[in-house]
């Protein structure tokens, strides 16, 4: 139990970082590595934007799907809390991201070099939304070692955006990734 959870007179500041990327890339792992609480799963129930049909007579189940989001917490100071949200990177969930990224510090786009394409939609999204982001390659045992610069070239990520190789299971690389993102967000924020 943290003091801020019970003291109503000093409500903490809540900040958040979004962890995005393809299925199985390590979002849940990353949130779990750094979170001070057992990561929670929250669900967003959504109606899939089915194209060309407006058929309300069909069963509603057909059009709704749940998207799981991992949720972790790090208390940074007496009155400062950082929340991490691991969220699916599929294009059809973008409307959910608009809501999620509002007020966020930025995003970590997790990539797996064996399935690099899986992170393209997330990159496209953050590039167009203007939210600060960094690319973190989660290195899996048995996957080939690539330089960060090889990945940058493949992803056509501009030079000022940090691209790093990390291990989502280890605390220090995860902290370094978050530091890179917050530093980058600071650079992108006007004085």
């Amino acid at each position, binding site marked *: 139990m943290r003091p801020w959870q019970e003291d109503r007179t000093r409500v903490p500041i*809540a900040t958040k970082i979004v962890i995005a990327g393809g299925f199985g890339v390590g979002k849940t792992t990353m949130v779990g590595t750094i979170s001070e609480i057992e990561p929670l799963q929250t669900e967003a*129930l959504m109606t899939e934007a089915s194209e060309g049909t407006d058929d309300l007579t069909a069963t509603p189940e057909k059009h709704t799907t749940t998207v799981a989001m991992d949720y972790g917490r790090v208390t940074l100071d007496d009155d400062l809390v950082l929340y991490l*949200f691991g969220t699916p990177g599929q294009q059809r969930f973008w409307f959910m991201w608009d809501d999620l990224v509002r007020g966020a510090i930025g995003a970590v786009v997790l990539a797996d070099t064996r399935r690099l394409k899986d992170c393209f939609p997330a990159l496209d999204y953050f590039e167009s939304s203007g939210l600060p982001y960094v690319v973190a390659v989660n290195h899996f045992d048995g996957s080939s070692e690539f330089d960060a610069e090889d990945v940058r070239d493949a992803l056509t990520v501009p030079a000022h955006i940090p691209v790093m190789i990390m291990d989502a299971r280890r605390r220090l690389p995860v902290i370094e990734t978050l530091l890179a993102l917050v530093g980058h967000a600071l650079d992108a924020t006007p004085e």
Partner: protein
Amino acid sequence: MSTPGTPRLPVRGGDRKPARVRPYSLTGGRTRFGHVLLVETFVAAIEAPEERKELENGSLSTRVVPELRAIVELCRRMRTVAEISALMRMPLGVVRVLLSDLADQGKIRVYGTGHGPRQPDRALLERVLSGLRRL
């Protein structure tokens, strides 16, 4: 598009009048809420120990469904919207609507995020940086 002959459902919001009776179902299909409830927005219960009895014979509009009561119970401690969603095993959208109702009824207070709705400013980012460095 519906084909001729198939029954047509009423369009939500088509002839909307201000809703006086609610909650008539868990969400009532409402998606609008007056409160800004981001995933990380803090909420907490407003302590009102004598209110229980009053609630039990309250009118339909104020009757507390079990879910609402459970949320108020969780909110005895400062919680975020996402945390309530996870602990209640309820989708975020549903939790937002219920929290919005509870706030309207004066059962919970929405404390916000402690900073504006936009991205954090430099001073706050500096604080987050130092906090992360101390981990």
